[in-house]
């Protein structure tokens, strides 16, 4: 195996040989080796953020017919570094009435919650932090720390806007977690396993073909989970100042910011793993670095969709958002789960599995679309019913 085909395996072997030559006890070797790989994965995630912020600004600029950052470095690539330097040298204000410990812990926790997801992301064959047998649920579990960090930030600020923003944010996050968890279960059901490696290796046909409706619902509820437009009610400036991180300044605000960007890309990567076959692609088994390339391409595809939606749609109202989740996404996700389970059991191992599942998904999608148009038409009708309002009298 040459270096250019599988650099991680070559370097890993090199480090292991080096450690063995030092005659350390076995436990220490495992510990140091794990530590090095952890640092590698975590710093990959953090370095990615710097690139992502630049990318998002560039793409958003193109959507709005602007150029975006273009002064610092070639194509403005160094812009994010400049921003980082600025954030580090900004004064860090901790409000007097804040609960200091919780106030300082919250931004760290929010970044931990996102970073921890990368521990189970399979980058390429053999390139994975750790292949937990509960991988998919682990991702959901880590996400609940993110929710907790929002609540901690909002409460400890001791500010009305922050607290109100935090509560709205948590209501939104937990609501949209329901369809997300339900649609995460569908790939698990199709793969017969929760391990992330297994998830990728069984996808001879990408799950997006077996469960397109589930994929769409997953993406939509994930966009709500990261709080991007059109679901950015957590920081609706016109209503809540800046939501739960109103009181945060400098690098602590930067943590929330970085966590959001990394989360957005992580969602793209998770979508790629669960529905687009992860690192699968021509030649990826033999040359792992190609697999990494494919995964990143697919992840950026998902991320691009997130950015596209962000720059296209306006923010929706909070009651509409909740109704959309509980009265549309969740029932549809439940129906999909039931249909997938039944059809997959009946047609397991036969050639009809793909057409049956695909057909069922498309029917559910069509039905869902039809029902949603009916609902919106009914709402429009109710809106047009004229209600007599008191007319303002001149004083």
């Amino acid at each position: 195996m040459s270096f250019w085909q599988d650099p991680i395996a070559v370097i890993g072997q090199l480090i292991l040989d080096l450690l063995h030559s030092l005659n350390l006890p076995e436990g220490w070797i495992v510990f140091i080796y794990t530590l090095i790989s952890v640092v590698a994965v975590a710093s990959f995630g953090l370095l990615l953020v710097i690139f992502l912020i630049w990318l998002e600004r560039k793409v958003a600029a193109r959507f709005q017919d602007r150029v975006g950052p273009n002064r610092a470095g070639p194509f403005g690539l160094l812009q994010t570094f400049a921003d980082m330097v600025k954030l580090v040298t900004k004064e860090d204000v901790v409000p007097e009435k804040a609960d200091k410990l919780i106030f300082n812990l919250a931004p760290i926790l929010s970044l931990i919650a996102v970073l921890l997801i990368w521990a189970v992301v399979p980058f390429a064959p053999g390139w994975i932090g750790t292949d937990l047998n509960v991988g998919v649920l682990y991702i959901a579990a880590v996400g609940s720390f993110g929710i907790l960090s929002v609540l901690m930030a909002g409460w400890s600020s001791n500010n009305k806007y922050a607290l109100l923003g935090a509560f709205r944010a948590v209501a939104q996050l937990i609501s949209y977690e329901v369809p997300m968890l339900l649609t995460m279960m569908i790939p698990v059901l199709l793969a017969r396993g929760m391990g992330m490696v297994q998830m990728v290796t069984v996808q001879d046909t990408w799950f997006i073909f077996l469960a397109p409706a589930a994929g769409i619902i997953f993406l939509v509820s994930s966009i709500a989970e990261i709080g991007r437009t059109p679901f950015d009610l957590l920081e609706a400036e016109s209503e809540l100042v800046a939501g739960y991180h109103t009181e945060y300044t400098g690098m602590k605000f930067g943590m929330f910011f970085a966590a959001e960007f990394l989360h957005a890309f992580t969602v793209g990567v998770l979508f790629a793993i669960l529905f687009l076959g992860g690192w699968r692609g021509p030649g990826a088994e033999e040359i792992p670095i190609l697999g990494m390339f494919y995964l990143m391409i697919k992840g950026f595809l998902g991320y691009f969709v997130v950015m596209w939606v962000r720059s296209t749609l306006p923010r929706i109202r909070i009651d509409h958002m909740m109704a959309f989740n509980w009265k549309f996404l969740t029932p549809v996700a439940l129906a999909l789960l039931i249909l997938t389970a039944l059809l997959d059991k009946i047609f397991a191992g036969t050639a009809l599995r793909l057409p049956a599942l695909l057909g069922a998904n498309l029917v559910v999608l069509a039905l869902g679309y039809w029902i949603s148009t009916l609902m919106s038409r009914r709402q429009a009708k109710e809106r047009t019913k004229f209600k007599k309002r008191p007319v303002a009298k001149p004083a």
Partner: protein
Amino acid sequence: MQNTWIFVGIFAAIAGVFPLLPIVAARFLAPSKPNTIKLDTYECGMETVGDTWVQFKVQYYIYALVFLIFDLEVAFLFPWAVAFDMLPLFAVVEGIIFILILGGGLLYAWRKGALEWS
């Protein structure tokens, strides 16, 4: 199996250290000139009136409640989904009955109007 979790433990520790570094760096690099007005609660220049605990609706609790129940459902159903190949058809149907019973709960909440953001 524990060995697969060691990585997660170390990862959590490192993931805690990484965001700490820039915050600590900021402590040394950033200026610090606190004054009373700066440290006061941010409220568009106005002084805060009353308690911070304002305007809480039971609705928040209701959403969390429905979420809790569906969380439990997911916890019960994930093993069922993983063991899918080993289950006969009637066992799959049992799982579906489980989903339907809780779907009834969602329907009840819906009909009762408990899902409205009022």
